[in-house]
């Protein structure tokens, strides 16, 4: 029964679907539960990337077509390359704009630019 190739792909795709969607929902939950922007970024950039990447991979495997699988892999690679970039850009912009870390934080060695006074 389990030697059936259809069964094998179905199980693999199902496992990827379940794990990927769990990572996605946990990333969303982390977005809700973490105390400040910078800690939330950890959830979004790691668990979120893996979640969506695994779901794309599942779609690629399910198609049973090498071109589609390569396309899904290209999408995964693109996603893995861009997610840290956008997280990094947003964290840098937020820190430079003056958004502070949560009070739980133990250290902040990044020098903070003096906040500019805003015109009313």
């Amino acid at each position, binding site marked *: 029964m389990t030697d059936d190739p259809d069964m094998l792909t179905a199980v693999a795709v199902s496992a990827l679907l379940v794990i990927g969607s769990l990572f996605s929902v946990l990333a*969303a939950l982390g977005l809700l539960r973490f105390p400040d922007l910078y800690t939330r970024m950890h959830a979004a950039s790691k668990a979120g990337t893996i*979640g*969506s990447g695994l779901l794309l991979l599942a779609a*690629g495997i*399910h198609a049973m077509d090498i071109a*589609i699988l390569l396309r899904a892999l290209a999408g995964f690679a693109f996603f893995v390359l861009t997610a840290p970039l956008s997280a990094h850009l947003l964290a840098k912009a*937020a820190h430079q704009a003056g*958004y502070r870390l*949560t009070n739980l934080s133990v250290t902040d060695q990044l020098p903070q630019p003096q906040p500019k006074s*805003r015109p009313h």
Partner: protein
Amino acid sequence: MSAAAILSSSIYFALAMLSLGLLLTVLRILRGPTLPDRVLALDMLVAIAIGLIAVLAIKSGFNLYIDIAIALSLVGFLATVAFARFVLARGLSPEKDSGAGRPLPTAQKTKHGKPARRNKKGVR
């Protein structure tokens, strides 16, 4: 249990989980409390939407959906980059209009320490 049954039940499980994830992310967008938080949540929303499209590709059998997911990831990345530039250009926002979803003052001390501190510094 047949292959099709396993596949369809896991597809429905994934759809349910992703919908829940979308809801949680929308909640974070509503609660804010700051602009970068919302930008991050929007980024996450795009990521979950990509996953959702991939699941829909499996469910419907249209492999073209994968190309749509890749295109969406490109657009989402560019949107986040543009938003990051916007956060940088706008600086610290007063966040006057985000009172609706704010945590209670007691919660601010323990769990959401940031808004309380920022208000004290007050840019206005």
